[in-house]
């Protein structure tokens, strides 16, 4: 059964009360950086690129923070929307420059031994390569579910879909990913 919960704290998508600018920005960063970084990381080949895009996302959000309207939705969904656009622009540019290749230095590992840690890295590397071959919609939902750690309801909020549609889309994306990995 597909997991609908996660053991990690959910990023906040609650509606924010206006606060002095930089204080609010730091709160946004603390609350949403893991989700943004995780989402971006499922779309790019290296930690370097993910860090640059995460920085670019938050700087755009801070510069445009006066345009954020809490009445229209949570800050997390708003910042994720900026992240999605930033990733999209990067992937277009990356086709011209060529995506960099780098080891998974940013991958957390609880493996009890270096050998198992290496196997884990290889396994994740293969999964990321397979994710990169999927269509944009599949990559997006996998990035939100496993990169950002969002539950179905949060993904539905970001994508503007029903929860049923999210579940269906995710299931089908995983099937296609499975086929890629077996190929």
């Amino acid at each position, binding site marked *: *059964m*597909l*997991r*609908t919960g*996660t053991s*990690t704290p959910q990023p906040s998508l609650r509606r924010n009360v206006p606060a002095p600018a*930089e204080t609010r*920005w*730091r709160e946004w*960063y603390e609350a949403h*950086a893991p989700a943004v*970084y*995780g989402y971006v*990381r499922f779309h790019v080949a290296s*930690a*370097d*690129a*993910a*860090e*640059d895009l*995460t*920085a*670019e996302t*938050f*700087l755009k959000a*801070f*510069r445009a923070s006066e345009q954020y309207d809490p009445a229209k939705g949570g800050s997390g969904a708003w910042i994720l929307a900026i992240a999605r656009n930033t990733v999209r622009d990067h992937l277009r540019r990356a086709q*011209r*420059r*060529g995506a*960099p290749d*780098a*080891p998974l*230095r*940013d*991958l*957390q590992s609880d493996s009890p031994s270096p050998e198992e840690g290496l196997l884990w890295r290889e*396994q*994740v590397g293969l*999964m990321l390569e397979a994710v990169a071959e999927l269509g944009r919609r599949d990559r997006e939902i*996998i990035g939100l*579910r*496993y*990169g950002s750690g969002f539950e179905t309801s949060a993904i539905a909020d970001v994508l503007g879909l029903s929860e*049923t549609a999210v*579940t*269906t889309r995710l*299931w*089908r994306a*995983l*099937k296609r*990913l*499975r086929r890629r*990995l077996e190929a």
Partner: protein
Amino acid sequence: MIENEDPGTGQHRGGEGARDDIRELDETLGAVRFTPRRSLEAEIFGRLQRERSSTAAARSSRIRSHLLIAGRHGTVLWSSATIAAAALLIWWAGAGLWTGEGTLATGIGEVTLDHCCSDLDGGGEADDGVLIQAGEDESVLRLAIYEDRDGSGGYTPADIIRAGPDSPRSTAGPLPRGSVTQDHCCRDFDAGGPADDGILLVSVPPDRILVAAVYEDRDASGNLSAADVVRYMLP
């Protein structure tokens, strides 16, 4: 979530094996966690502060030169290097100085960038980092290459500076035998925003760095070329 049915059609998704495969994939993906480098937050807010602050400190003049490497003989040529007298940097009270012992100061409008870890000295280990102090207008004020001795993933006083502002100057001439040239492009090395900067390194493995130059990849070629601009060079 209904385990045996496709939520879109209500039909069975397939055999038990297919469901197990998807479940296993879901669990494996759910265990993946990525963490960015620790200095990222400070860099972001440093860049933000720079954008918002007024210019009060004097800037050091840019050192602009063109670096050509003759491939066949491996000789490094310095051409039309104009070294202007550098203006003094005025540090605000409370800021320290770059001591080379791990203290990095930032004056108004400056950002410290710490990119770790790759194999920059040709030693075969991805344990080297780049420490950059970037000024306004995409200028690079200081550059150091360090070895991440304590494995922290960023610069600490426990690390070793392999090449920095105090590195001895070398004169033009043939490169030592066994020297390695690397060109790492493209990232944001000058805190300007776009990932359009590279760093060119000439080293003698395992850990001796002869030359390090940060450049802006103006022609988007992905490596240093005559059309690019060198922002900073060591020594």
